[in-house]
């Protein structure tokens, strides 16, 4: 039967057989890409040899010899290595990206919800914010915040002084630095204990509500557990906390914590820019919850607030999370614009200064790209896990 079938099939020329064609196309493509990669690599080796650069990680443990204006870990320009400079830069990137994500999320949710407000003025103002900010390049916004706003603040002698003892001038923002005295570790322990107790109570309250339908006043008890024990220990231990206030000198301000103007401008710019995109994500997510859901909740006797908390938000979050993740990644990638205003992030330190000093273009660009790829992949992985948990609620 099958022999008869195949015999009846028309004979196809070899070059017309789809399978043969497919293999030929793929082999051709692989050969072309392979040739490109090979010639690029051999050219690179030639060119590097001519420039007397030995590629590799040999420079990693060499003394860097340049200063960095903001370091979260100890770093010394005379003794520290390029490797150490890399970690300083990476931590600075993570710091600004992490804080930026927090601020952009808060601002973005507020503006996204405002755009749907029944208050006409509020909705229009939020819409104007989104349309303006989204249509201006981030780089322009960063330059504006840095050069036109922060650099035009008064200089050190005429610093603005806030009642709390903070100074603001064109060199940065100087805040009182908390000093943890003897006995503060007990307070820290109390904070941990309080937080654990609060989480445990919330879980227990939820189980009990599902079992019996009775809901204890979760919010107030959780707040009491979080704030109460640390406060009590703090008082009992005799206030083991002091502040190192910044002191205004003639030309400089000493003491306290210094927030660089570059850092402030970058954080400002990134948060404000990304918030406009997050606002749109939030708005789309809330609009995606069909109105029937809200009406059904009302007809079951839920009040507006529980309807929002139990019906609208959980369903909207399912729509919001995936695009929100990509906004977080965009913010992290956009933090590389730090290089334009001189904030010492990974790109400014590593792809800028280190590359200029060592000439290791291939290694350094590859490492930088690998870092951002890793951040991207890890974030998408975590968000996919979360997304799967949220998506399971579906029928």
């Amino acid at each position: 039967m099958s022999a008869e079938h195949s015999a009846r099939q028309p004979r196809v020329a070899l070059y017309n057989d789809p399978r043969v064609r497919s293999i030929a196309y793929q082999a051709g493509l692989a050969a072309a890409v392979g040739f490109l990669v090979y010639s690029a690599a051999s050219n690179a080796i030639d060119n590097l040899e001519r420039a007397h650069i030995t590629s590799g990680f040999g420079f990693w443990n060499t003394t860097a010899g340049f200063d960095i204006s903001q370091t979260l870990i100890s770093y010394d320009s005379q003794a520290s290595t390029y490797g150490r400079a890399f970690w300083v830069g990476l931590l600075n990137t993570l710091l600004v990206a992490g804080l930026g994500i927090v601020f952009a999320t808060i601002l973005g949710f507020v503006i996204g919800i405002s755009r749907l407000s029944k208050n006409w003025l509020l909705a229009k103002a939020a819409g104007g914010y989104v349309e303006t900010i989204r249509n201006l390049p981030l780089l322009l916004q960063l330059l504006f915040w840095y050069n036109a706003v922060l650099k035009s603040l008064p200089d050190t002698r005429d610093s603005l002084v806030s009642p709390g003892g903070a100074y603001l001038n064109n060199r940065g923002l100087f805040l009182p630095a908390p000093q943890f005295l003897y006995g503060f570790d007990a307070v820290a322990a109390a904070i941990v204990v309080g937080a654990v107790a609060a989480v445990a109570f919330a879980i227990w309250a939820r189980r009990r509500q599902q079992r019996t339908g009775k809901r204890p006043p979760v919010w107030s008890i959780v707040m009491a557990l979080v704030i109460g024990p640390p406060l009590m220990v703090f008082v009992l231990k005799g206030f083991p906390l002091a502040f190192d206030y910044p002191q205004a000198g003639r030309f400089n301000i000493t003491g306290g914590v210094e927030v660089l103007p570059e850092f402030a401008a970058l954080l400002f710019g990134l948060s404000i820019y990304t918030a406009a995109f997050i606002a749109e994500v939030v708005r789309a997510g809330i609009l995606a919850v069909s109105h029937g859901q809200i009406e059904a909740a009302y007809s079951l006797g839920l009040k507006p607030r529980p309807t929002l908390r139990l019906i609208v938000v959980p369903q909207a979050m399912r729509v919001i999370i995936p695009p929100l993740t990509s906004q977080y990644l965009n913010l992290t990638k956009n933090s590389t614009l730090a290089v334009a205003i001189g904030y010492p992030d990974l790109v400014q330190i590593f792809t800028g200064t280190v590359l200029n000093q060592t000439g290791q273009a291939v290694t350094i660009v590859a490492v930088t790209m690998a870092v951002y790829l890793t951040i991207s992949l890890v974030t998408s992985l975590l968000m996919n896990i979360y997304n799967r948990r949220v998506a399971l609620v579906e029928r």
Partner: protein
Amino acid sequence: MTMSEGELAVTELRFVRGEAIAPRPPPAAMTGAFAWMRANLLSTPFNVALTILLVLLLAWVVPEIVKFLLVDAVWSGTDRDACREIVQHRPIGACWPFVWERLSYFVYGSYPIEERWRVDLFFAMLAFGVGWLLWLEAPRRGLGAIYFFLVLPVCSFVLLHGLPAIGLPLVDTVLWGGVLVTIVVAAVGIVASLPLGILLALGRRSSMPTVNLLSTIFIEFVRGVPLITVLFMASVMLPLFVPQQYEPDKLLRALIGIALFASAYMAEVVRAGLQAIPRGQFEGSMALGLGYWQSMQLVILPQALRITIPNIVNTYIGLFKDTTLVFIVGIFDFLRTVEVARIDPKWATPVTSTTGYAVAAMFYLAFCYGMSRYARAMELRLARAGRH
């Protein structure tokens, strides 16, 4: 008991009105501006507070902006003294003479003055092509696409870079700058990313494992890294990858970086459009005897691209904003020329930076807002077309 005449007359007295009363106007508090305000601005105490707060905020911000840009602005002058508070003894807003003087630098960069007609001609040709493609009822739009994607790039290159054989002297790209570079970078990104993006999207949906794998790796890699690192790669690594005698021009390197970056994003946009086309369309075209490329070209892509136009335009908005990043690898785009001009000592005043940034903001806002309006109009048009 029988009914008397009088009783009958009583029952004939009707208690129902025979004709309708003319409708009375609704209570004054329920109509007009007052009611609208009550419903939309003052519905709850919280809303009243919000409205008051916002009115105060706007009353503070808007007059400040108007004052800076118009009322206190300086409209004429020859150097920085015209825009200094100490000299003029009055509050100073935007310093427009600085912009007038630097306007040609903002537009052409350092392009030789006697050759600037070439740049103007390029702008005109580009505007003509863009108009042809954007105006949906324009005649011969197919020809317009050929003009935009094939004729225009070649002509522009000859025009801007020069071809001594036909009497156009060479103009080195180091001299290019300002709006010219911004438009060139954006146009190259726009023209190159669409075909490349379509190819990558088709590759990612291909059943051939090698094609699929290579496309996926490229797209995910480029989308996973910041544009700056792509530009750094193009500007510091590309010269290493080619033989020494072919070292590419600085602007060309940035253009390659931008084109590759934009095509990876475009690929994902096009892929979303391809996924929205039902499989039956492909099977139908196969049944008609069309090959892969024929069915893509005649059946699938026209439908997929039409529904993707709003997203394609949104990608172009992102691309247009991203052109500012070439600034960082040392190319004089519009933002860079503003940045250079604002630190010029001749115009050094406290308001120069803000004036420069205001001009840049208006430029980018006009382009990006225009594009986003167009995308929105296309979306509405598609939604209307989809209904019947």
